[in-house]
């Protein structure tokens, strides 16, 4: 196989390559200039939530423990007003075979690939999803290729991604590691075309349906344990699949009053395609480098219409600093005896701050944990940060500066969340939507209705914002 297919040529063929590797004709769902039938896209997969549960059960996936963090709740209450300090629970998704909730997505994608007679699956991901797909492929007897953005021009591998490389290789997958840059997508297209494997993308309907069981499970578990649904569920937010699937799952369980909160690590100021910045962030996912672009324009992924549409489902969007996540990771280990990875701890940091403001009988669920180990651990990340000249110290978390300073709180009372103005986000989304149209395109009523659903607003709101822009 030669890599020199030609960048322009392959990128020009992207739609056909993706269509061949996924078997979904997205054009049939279009209902307007911008509008498409989102629910039909998901329903046409033919999987009900019970069928997804059955697939996952056979794959040793799901049905994970819900753990109450009583010591952490006590720590919150020590610094809260009387009567305040909600109960914090965590859904231990690290209990899944490859150590994260991504197994739920991978189980469905691999099942689908096998049903269609593919000999293998391919995924473009530097994160847990790669290991999950490799693990599920191994169980299903399929081959697996994972394409990762893994190292910078100095050859320095991001330690968390190095651990993912190791895990994927341990499961028998072929791992292609690429240096920093969006052209990873070109490499992935070459792989899909050459191999004929199924595209196990994070953004297909299968990938989203796989997460619905997580939301459904946690709602039922809380109700069984506490007699009611959670008040708040916090999901770490990057590409939007986690939030979308969990929210849909909560709805399926009947938890319609549960507030869905997206949490991301704030990496403002760092450029995601910068060779220099690549290793100057201590988090590889669950951060604003993904969540801001994907919330304000989901259709930027490796499929034409993204099944992850987070702005439809989020009630609140908060950020936390790198330092606060490292702090709460240490607290979780030392007060609860749970050593877990950064993705879930991002939401736990947010939960700690938010719990302080809620009543003691209210219930917050941190929607995931992930495994940890060499490379993923705070020690690995902070040692690399120091090596690259980033200042690491204790202090006020508001002094965190992505790429330059990691400030770890000195006291639990300093943990806080920063709210992202959802109105501003909606404006950005609508701006992007208008920008995506041709000069002379007119929006129909169907489009306005679609945009209202996309932004969780109203047709009047959408019309008002668009009129302001034009």
């Amino acid at each position, binding site marked *: 196989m030669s890599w020199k297919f030609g960048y322009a040529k392959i990128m020009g063929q992207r739609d056909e390559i993706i269509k061949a590797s996924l078997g979904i004709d997205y054009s049939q769902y279009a209902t307007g200039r911008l509008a498409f039938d989102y629910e039909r896209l998901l329903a046409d997969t033919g999987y009900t939530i019970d069928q997804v549960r059955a697939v996952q059960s056979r794959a040793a996936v799901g049905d994970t423990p819900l753990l109450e963090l009583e010591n952490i709740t006590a720590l919150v209450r020590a610094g809260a007003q009387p009567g305040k300090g909600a109960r914090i629970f965590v859904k231990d998704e690290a209990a899944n075979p490859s150590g994260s909730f991504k197994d739920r997505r991978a189980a469905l994608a691999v099942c689908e690939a096998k049903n269609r007679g593919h000999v293998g699956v391919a995924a473009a991901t530097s994160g847990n999803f790669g290991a999950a797909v490799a693990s599920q492929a191994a169980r299903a007897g399929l081959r697996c290729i994972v394409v990762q953005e893994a190292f910078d021009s100095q050859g320095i591998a991001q330690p968390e991604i190095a651990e993912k490389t190791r895990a994927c290789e341990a499961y028998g997958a072929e791992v292609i590691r690429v240096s920093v840059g969006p052209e990873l997508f070109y490499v992935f297209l070459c792989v899909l075309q050459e191999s004929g494997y199924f595209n196990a993308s994070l953004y297909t309907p299968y990938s989203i349906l796989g997460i619905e069981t997580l939301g459904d499970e946690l709602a039922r578990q809380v109700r069984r344990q506490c007699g009611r649904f959670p008040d708040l569920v916090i999901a770490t937010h990057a590409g939007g699949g986690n939030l979308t699937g969990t929210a849909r799952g909560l709805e399926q369980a009947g938890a319609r009053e549960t507030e869905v909160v997206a949490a991301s690590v704030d990496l403002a100021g760092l450029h995601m395609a910068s060779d220099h910045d690549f290793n100057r962030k201590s988090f590889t996912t669950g951060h604003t480098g993904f969540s801001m672009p994907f919330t304000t324009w989901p259709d930027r992924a490796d499929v034409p219409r993204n099944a992850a549409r987070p702005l439809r489902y989020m009630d609140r969007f908060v950020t936390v600093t790198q330092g606060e996540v490292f702090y709460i990771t240490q607290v979780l280990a*030392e007060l609860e005896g749970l050593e877990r990875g950064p993705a879930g701890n991002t939401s736990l940091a947010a939960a700690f701050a938010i719990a302080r403001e809620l009543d003691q009988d209210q219930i917050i669920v941190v929607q995931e944990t992930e495994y940890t180990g060499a490379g993923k651990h705070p*020690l690995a990340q902070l040692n690399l940060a120091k090596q690259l000249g980033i200042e690491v110290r204790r202090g006020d978390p508001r002094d965190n500066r992505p790429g330059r300073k990691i400030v770890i709180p000195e006291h639990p009372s300093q943990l806080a969340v920063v709210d992202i103005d959802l109105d501003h986000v909606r404006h950005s989304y609508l701006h992007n939507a208008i920008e995506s149209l041709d000069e002379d395109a007119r929006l129909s009523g169907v489009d306005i209705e679609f945009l209202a659903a996309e932004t969780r607003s109203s047709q009047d709101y959408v019309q008002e914002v668009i009129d302001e822009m034009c």
Partner: protein
Amino acid sequence: MTEFVTQGSWVEIQNIILDVGERAAQVPQDTRQVPLELRIKGFLVAAAALGDEAEIETPTGRRLRGKLTTANPAYTHTFGSPIPELSTIGGEVRAILREQGRIR
């Protein structure tokens, strides 16, 4: 003296996919100035010297060619030394819980 790696060894090869000047239009300045590099591991199809072009068979059975960079490439990611800024946190929060009477 060239170091030959025996046939069947687990190795890593490297390719330059896009040279400087061939990078995508949207990449920032610093990324634009370096090539897009690819690394992949597999089993050496025929003995080759480090630095030479070689062919591997990957775990999926695909054959790929590239510059032979490493024999039996090690996983070097680790934990590293304890970070003093984390080491005292446990004691601090336990002290708070002790004050509350929650632990002894």
